[in-house]
C-alpha cells in the first residue's frame, strides 16, 4: 500500500496514528483504527505497546536521528528484542540479530561498530532490520529513502521488496515520489491537505486517475523516460493547514471547479472495483 502526498498533506501523521504514536495530551483526534480485527485506537498505552514494535513497526526517513550514536549496532538490536520480549536471553537475541544481518546484507562482524561508522544506506538497512527483528505483520515505512542517493535508494527499495516477499509482510509505504509507488505499491492512496483524495489499485491511479489533483500531479512530474514531454503546470500552492480552504481543499487550484466545490466537502465515492475518490465531478448530474 502506497500513500503519496506532498509535504503537509498528512501522510506521516496518518502513519503515526496507525502506530499509536500521536501524543495523547496535545493531539485531538477522532475516528477508529482497526488492526487484525481489533480496534487499536481505543487501546491504553500499555496495551498499545504490545502491538507497537511486535505487530506493527515503523521505519523513519533519517536513520541517524533514530539510532543512538554511542551504542553499538548490535546492542540496538539486543536491547530492542529484550525490551519487548524480556524472556529472551542475550545469547538468543544475538543469534537472532546475526540472522537478520544476513537478510540485510550486512556482515555480522559489523554488529560491533557504531552508527557513525555506517554509511547512510547501511544505516537505513539497520533501521529495516530493527523493524523486522520482532517479526511484525505490518511495516510502516515513512519516506525510507528520501535522505539517500538514487542508486542507494534503489538498493534499499529492492531490499524492502525482497524482505516483504520473504516474510510475507504488509507494508505501508509513505512517500512523495510517484515513481516509487509506481514501482512498489499494489494500491495507492493519494493525500491532499489532510484528506484522502483518491485511493485505487496502482495501475488505475496511473492510467485512469479520477481526482483532478491526481491527474494534475501526474502531468506535472518530469520523467527520464523517452520523449521530452512538456509538463502541465499545476497552478497555485498547497494549502495552509491552519486555514484550509472551504469545501474541497483542492478547489482553489482545480481546473474543473464549479460552485459546489467551494461550499461542500466531497465524500469518497466508489469509482470502480476497490477504487474511491472524493470529488464532486463524480456525483455531478449532467
Amino acid at each position: 500500500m502506497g500513500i503519496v502526498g506532498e509535504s503537509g498533506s498528512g501522510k506521516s501523521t496518518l502513519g503515526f496514528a496507525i502506530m499509536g504514536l500521536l501524543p495523547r495530551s496535545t493531539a485531538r483526534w477522532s475516528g477508529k483504527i482497526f488492526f487484525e480485527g481489533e480496534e487499536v485506537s481505543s487501546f491504553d498505552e500499555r496495551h498499545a505497546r504490545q502491538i507497537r514494535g511486535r505487530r506493527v513497526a515503523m521505519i523513519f526517513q533519517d536513520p541517524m536521528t533514530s539510532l543512538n550514536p554511542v551504542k553499538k549496532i548490535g546492542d540496538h538490536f539486543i536491547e530492542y528484542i529484550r525490551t519487548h520480549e524480556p524472556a529472551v536471553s542475550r545469547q538468543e537475541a544475538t543469534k537472532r540479530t546475526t540472522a537478520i544481518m544476513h537478510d540485510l546484507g550486512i556482515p555480522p562482524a559489523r554488529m560491533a561498530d557504531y552508527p557513525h561508522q555506517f554509511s547512510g544506506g547501511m544505516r537505513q538497512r539497520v533501521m529495516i532490520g530493527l523493524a523486522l527483528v520482532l517479526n511484525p505483520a505490518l511495516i510502516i515505512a515513512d519516506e525510507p529513502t528520501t535522505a539517500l542517493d538514487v542508486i542507494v535508494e534503489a538498493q534499499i527499495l529492492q531490499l524492502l521488496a525482497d524482505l516483504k516477499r520473504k516474510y510475507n509482510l504488509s507494508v505501508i509505504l509513505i512517500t512523495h515520489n510517484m515513481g516509487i509507488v509506481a514501482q512498489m505499491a499494489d494500491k495507492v492512496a493519494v493525500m491532499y491537505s489532510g484528506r484522502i483524495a483518491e485511493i485505487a489499485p496502482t495501475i488505475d491511479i496511473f492510467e485512469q486517475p479520477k481526482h483532478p489533483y491526481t491527474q494534475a500531479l501526474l502531468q506535472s512530474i518530469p520523467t527520464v523516460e523517452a520523449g521530452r514531454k512538456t509538463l502541465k503546470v499545476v497552478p497555485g500552492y498547497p494549502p495552509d493547514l491552519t486555514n484550509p480552504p472551504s469545501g474541497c481543499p483542492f478547489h482553489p487550484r482545480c481546473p474543473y471547479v464549479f460552485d459546489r466545490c467551494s461550499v461542500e466537502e466531497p465524500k469518497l465515492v466508489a469509482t470502480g472495483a476497490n477504487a474511491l475518490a472524493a470529488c464532486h465531478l463524480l456525483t455531478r448530474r449532467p
Partner: protein
Amino acid sequence: MAFVEASKLKKYFPVQKSFIAQLLSRQTDYVRAVDEIDLSVRRGDVYGLVGESGSGKTTIGRLTVALAKPTAGRVSVGGTDPFAGGRMKEFRRRVQMIYQDPLSSLNPKMKVGDAIGEPLRYLAKMGSHKRRLAVDKMLETVGLSPASTFYDRYPQELSGGQRQRVVIARALISQPEYVVADEPVAMVDVSVRAQIMDLLLRMQSDLKLTVLMITHDLAVAKYMCNRISVMYLGKIAETGDNEQLFSNPLHPYTKALMAAVPIPNPRARTEKNVPTGEIPSALHPPSGCRFHPRCPYAFDRCKAEEPRPLEPEPGHFVFCHLYDR
C-alpha cells in the same frame, strides 16, 4: 570560445585534525572535492551538472562564481578570471547563485521586497525610489502578483514555492549574465516543481542567461538542460547533449544512475541491475577510474589507469576505458 570555462580545475579541502594529531604528523589529508576538471559552457546554455551527493557538483558551481578559490586550475566567465587580480568586483556583478533552501537563504527579518532589492543597492548603487520600482516589476515578472501585496511580506508568510520565486527574483534583478542554480527545485513541493522549472526556463530565455543547473535528479536535468555532465567522486564521467545522453548513455555509471530512477509507470516494473556499494570517500578515492570498484564491466586497466576523455560521437564525451579498446 565557451562562455564559462574551467580548465584543470581542482578544489581540495583540508581535513580538520585534532591538535594532538597535528603534532604527531605533518601531513594533512585532503578531500578531493573536485579533481582536475575541464568544463565548457556556451553562452545561453542551460548546462546540467548531475551527480549524487559528494560528487563535487556544488563545489564546481561555487568555484565558477568565485565563492570558493580553486586549489589549482582556472575558471573564467565571459573571459574574466575572477582570481586574476582586481577584477572581483566587476565579476560579482555578472554572476549570481540560486540556492536549494529558500527559507535559509532569506533573512527572516527582512521584507521580501527589500531582500530582492539588495543586489541593486550594493551592486548597482541604486537609490531607494528606483529600487522600489525595479523590485515591483521583478515581483510581477516572477509571478508574485500584484507586487504591492507581496513587497511587505516576510519570508515565513509565504509558501515554499513563493519563497523560491523570491530567491529567483533576487538573483536575477541585477541582470547577471551567468547564474548557478544549486538544486533549485529539490525542496519545492512536487506539484509546484513544474511552475518553478518553467519560471527558470522562461527567465533564462527572456534574459538570455547562461545557467549552470546543479541537480541530483536526472528527470529535472532532462526537462531543463540542453547539455549535461554526469559527475562521480570529483570527476566528470560523461558529457553530452540532452538527447545524446538520455538516448545513448555510454558510461556504466550514467547507465546505473538512469536504471536506478524509479519510473512513474507501474507497467514498467523491472528487476533492476543496481550496482552494489556506495560512493567511496573522496579522501582516498580509488585508483584509476574512480568507479571501477562498483563497475560491472571493470577490467585490469580500469584499476591502473585514469581514463582519458573519448568522443565516440561528435560532442559526446565519455571517460571510460571500455570505449578505448
